[in-house]
């Protein structure tokens, strides 16, 4: 165990990814207790101030502190990404496992239905869903969540199919275990690694999708700060106050980078076969 742990720490992408992700998570947590300034109080007189001692990252067009906005905005990003991954995994994984266990017509129908959802460009469809049901964080979650379902279903099914022909599953069958039992006892535990890796990747994609939806005005609504909308609002002011675009952009980039590094590191660690293949 300690050797394993050492190799984990020694994995540079895992280390950097973890640190970045932790910082973002801590920032979001801290924002519930404290932010340098209130994000709901506007101070028009202090608008578009460049970074300074009092406002580390400057102020926006309403005179709000950008650091505080980024801190609070991380909540929307993390919340939307987390819940949409939970929806995707919660529905997609059982579907994939069911398809793998049953095979035949069930498998065929589930997977073709998956293909149908998968065939639409995810972000475009998310725009469609929020356009129909109205903008807002909840609809953004549902939209992104729906498009996480086929991703998890495919991964779960593919990996499960490979497990179903293994000896230990045959042994379990031989002692009379049913499909459901085998899936729960033997298939799912062996899938955990790959699902965690997929979850991390989808999480970072969720953050990007949330930013994208907010950018076009379909994500979290004001006064709730969101990174994507901060970028949108900065757009017309870019020549006056470039810091307004720079910092939320960096926040999105660094967070996504951190999650991707974390996912990479986890994969190397949890799936040694892949590491040797490199």
């Amino acid at each position, binding site marked *: 165990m300690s050797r394993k742990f050492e190799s984990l720490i020694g994995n540079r992408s895992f280390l950097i990814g973890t640190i970045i992700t932790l910082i973002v998570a801590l920032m979001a947590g801290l924002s519930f207790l404290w932010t340098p300034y209130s994000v709901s109080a*506007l101070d028009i007189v202090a608008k578009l101030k460049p970074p300074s001692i009092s406002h580390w990252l400057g102020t926006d*067009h*309403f005179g709000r502190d950008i650091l505080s906005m980024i801190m609070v905005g991380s909540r929307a990003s993390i919340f939307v990404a987390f819940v949409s991954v939970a929806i995707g995994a919660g529905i997609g994984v059982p579907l994939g496992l069911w398809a793998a266990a049953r095979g035949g017509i069930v498998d065929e129908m589930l997977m073709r239905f998956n293909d149908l959802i998968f065939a639409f460009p995810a972000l475009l469809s998310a725009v469609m869903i929020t356009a129909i049901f109205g903008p807002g964080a909840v609809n953004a979650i549902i939209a992104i969540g729906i498009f996480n379902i086929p991703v998890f279903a495919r991964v779960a099914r593919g990996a499960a199919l490979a497990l179903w022909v293994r000896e230990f599953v045959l042994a379990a069958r031989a002692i009379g275990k049913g499909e459901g039992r085998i899936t729960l006892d033997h298939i799912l535990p062996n899938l955990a690694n790959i699902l965690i890796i997929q979850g991390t990747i989808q999480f970072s994609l969720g953050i990007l999708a949330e930013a994208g939806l907010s950018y076009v005005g379909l994500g979290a*609504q004001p006064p709730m700060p969101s990174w994507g909308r901060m970028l949108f609002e900065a757009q*017309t002011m870019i020549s006056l106050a470039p810091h307004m675009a720079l910092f939320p952009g960096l926040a999105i980039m660094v967070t996504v980078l951190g999650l991707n590094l974390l996912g990479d590191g986890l994969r190397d660690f949890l799936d040694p076969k892949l590491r040797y293949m490199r």
Partner: protein
Amino acid sequence: MNIWKAFLFGTAVALLPATASFAAKTDLVLGIVLEPPHLDPTAGAAAAIDEIVYANIFEGLTRIGPKGDVLPALAESWTKSEDGKVYTFKLHKGVKFHDGTTFDADDVKFSLDRARGDTSTNAQKGLFAAIDTVESVDPLTVKVALKQPSGDFLYNMAWGDAVIVAPESADTNKDKPIGTGPFKLENWAKGSQIVIAKNPDYWGTPATLEKATFRIIPDPAAATAALLAGDVQAFPVFPSYETIAQFQADPRFKVVIGTTEGETVMGMNNKKPPFDNVKVRQAIAHAIDRKTVIDGTMFGFGTPIGSFFPPHHPAYLDLTAEAAYDPELAKKLLAEAGYADGFKTTLKLPPPTYARRGGEIIAAQLREIGIEAEIIPVEWAQWLDQVFKNKNYEMTIVSHTEPNDLNIFARDDYYFNYDSAPFKELIKQIDATSDGPKRIELYQQAQKLLAADEPAAFLFQLPKTGIWDAKIEGLWENGPIQANDLTAVKWAD
């Protein structure tokens, strides 16, 4: 040495035509924010239609000039009967429509009867409500009899909705507008641009421009870029207030901040509790700091208003003190209305910057007195359907850009759901009064009544933020009517 001479000569020759074409520049590209749904001003309320066709393609009996005054157009003169009920218009001779058909009194009768008829799709049928009969006396004389004297009649006939069309082309004007104006439609590339070209057979003073292109640029950031790059040379209503200062500092551009007829208001649904309580409406009016709203939304461009009347109008009364920013008073009024702890409501915001940004600021200011207004952004189509047509809303922000539109608060089925017998009576009197001082007196009474009743929170007068190449002359500074009149526009040498 010879090589150098040849080179210099070559350069000079190359430069010659360039300078020559500079002096003779006769085309202009203008930026507009919204694409018109079609180009028939007699069949649509969209301001974007008039912004292309008014005075350029279509003309009426009268027209509005750059200062908001009523000028003769297709009618060269007119007389009014003693009792003020019959107008006799003398029409210009030799006027032809763009398709070559002749303009005469029958076209006037056709246009006015069509606009006020039962099957009319005119968006401003009220303009013609006073008309009793229209009679073509001879090809160049039209007699219009009114039901009662109307102080606004000549003004009403100058609206884009009252332009004269020909029976031959009236039904196809949406796509192929055929008017009598100094420009004809050349080409409309949907989603991109509308090109109009000079009408060589124009009856009046011909336009200086040979060609004008209206390029549709909805995105404020793109509008800034297009102007800076020279892709458009004029933006009569520039949508990106934050970058105006940058243009003001740039000698290549002329920045003209003029007035418009756009009263920006936060409309409230006067039939829906708690907005049916006048104290709640007054509390909201006192909770809004107009200066902050203007600074934050419009970067300082805009004039605060306390009632529904444009500040540049001679009858304007400054009533901003009636709704002065006073959160304590607002809280007190809310408590008196029975909402000491405030309430939850919604604020539907259409796409323009003044609404989206203004709404965010106002929501923050309302939060200070305990009102939680949830912001719901809507597209124009949704706004028209939900708010304007079905009155399914609580609060909304919109700018009313029609001129002379005080009477919307007297309309029974208007989206404010405001119903005040005294106000309706005032509007009726104003309609029947053409006398100057009496009319001004009535206008001021109406303003005071609205400021006391607060059927909507009056915010600010929308400015006309025009930016164009410093060498362009003749564009309107103010916007007394929705128009981009290009008849007098030219490039300075």
